[in-house]
């Protein structure tokens, strides 16, 4: 059974329909890259999955949790999927460690001692165990993004949504974040990532989704999508035309 089931999802911003009936099933442990031009609806799709945007039509299920606009449903769903953002969005008034500890303590009522142990483990996992007491503005962009990943992992999600997580980084910092994500993929984490890192998508992902004008235009394993694109839109996007 699929972990994330997206069925006929439609989303409008005013008169502009940005998602025109999306269908996508993600299996547990699958790593999926969503590519496409800006404005194709890929970020919006990701934000719909954990309820940051409401959907106008269709259905989204994550591990049996149904997307509905009320607080109880949203909370149940968000306990199953974590999200990482382009702009990191660390809490600037808290140290790296406290950023990771906050949600387990507040949402799951984990004791401070257990939350700290978990936070140290997660920060080690992203290679930042030594930065536990550093504030976000004392960290580089790459380090901040890795703390954000640790923060999402501390909630023990079944899947992670990554919204262009390397787009705000200086080129030399991109790799340290991609390495962490690659390691997660190896460990079997389900990942759904909007990305412009084509090489990474090719090497790490199981399937690549090409979105165009609010639809899933082409979908398939990376070799097929990158070396043998079927549609002129994808060929053009990949610079083959």
């Amino acid at each position, binding site marked *: 059974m699929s972990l994330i089931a997206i069925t006929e999802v439609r989303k409008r911003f005013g008169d502009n329909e940005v998602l025109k009936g999306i269908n996508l099933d993600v299996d547990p442990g699958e790593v999926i890259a969503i590519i496409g031009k800006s404005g194709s609806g890929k970020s919006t799709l990701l934000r719909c999955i954990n309820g940051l945007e409401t959907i106008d039509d269709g259905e989204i299920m994550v591990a049996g949790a149904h997307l509905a606009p009320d607080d109880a449903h949203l*909370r149940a769903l968000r306990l199953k999927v*974590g999200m990482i953002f382009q702009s990191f*969005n660390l809490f600037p008034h808290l140290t790296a460690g406290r950023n990771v500890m906050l949600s387990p303590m507040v949402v799951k009522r984990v004791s401070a001692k257990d939350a700290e142990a978990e936070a140290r483990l997660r920060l080690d996992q992203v290679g930042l165990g030594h930065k536990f007491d550093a504030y976000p503005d004392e960290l580089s962009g790459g380090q901040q993004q890795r703390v954000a990943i640790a923060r*999402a992992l501390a909630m023990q999600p079944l899947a992670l949504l990554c919204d262009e997580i390397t787009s705000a980084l200086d080129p030399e910092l991109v790799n340290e974040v991609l390495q962490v994500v690659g390691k997660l993929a190896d460990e079997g984490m389900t990942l759904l990532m909007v990305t412009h890192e084509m090489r990474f998508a090719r090497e790490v992902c199981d399937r690549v989704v090409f979105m165009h004008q609010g639809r899933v235009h082409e979908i398939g394993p990376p070799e097929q999508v990158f070396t043998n694109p079927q549609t002129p839109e994808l060929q053009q996007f990949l610079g083959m035309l």
Partner: protein
Amino acid sequence: MSPFTTWDILRNLLFAAEWTILLSLVAFIGGGIVGLAVLFARTGRNAALRRVSMVYIELIQGTPLLMQLFLSFFGLSLLGFDVPPWFAAGLSLTLWTSAFLAEIWRGCVEAIPRGQWEASSSLAMTYFEQMRHVVLPQALRIAVPPTVGFSVQVVKGTALTSIIGFVELSKASTMITNATFQPFVVYGLAALVYFALCWPLSKSSQILERKLNVAHRNH
């Protein structure tokens, strides 16, 4: 020659100033508590509460404090309640303060970037948890200087309560003038007392602004 010395006048004004201070504290603390509740209603997810709190803020900001004092003093009497001036004064100043503080604080809450709300939402926090742990701690930094600055308005606002007969600094000045026939001396001294109360507040607001800005730059 008046039988009252300047010291007599000042001493009596200082006694009355205690009531100005007390009323300011009541209005500021009460207004802070009510204002926090209005803030949650105003920035929360419930559309009806947002609407109600908006109307509340606009009504209070859109009418003179003097009218609010009259309405609570005479209005409540009409309804059959025996309202002492101190109660009407405390009530109207508390409500007046709450509306202004809620609006000042709303600006501070809305100055927190949307990404902070989205990140904490994604971590499954509820609105109250987001406010308590993520938004308010950051909003507090920017809220302190304007809040302390507004307390000056509260202190000066207490002068209006003299109209409904609450004996604080301004009412006492009028009474002392009636006895001494030295309005310039009396009101001049009263103004100095007000200034002595307000100036440290606005000064500390400035200092806090500088201090908290520095802190903001570091973390």
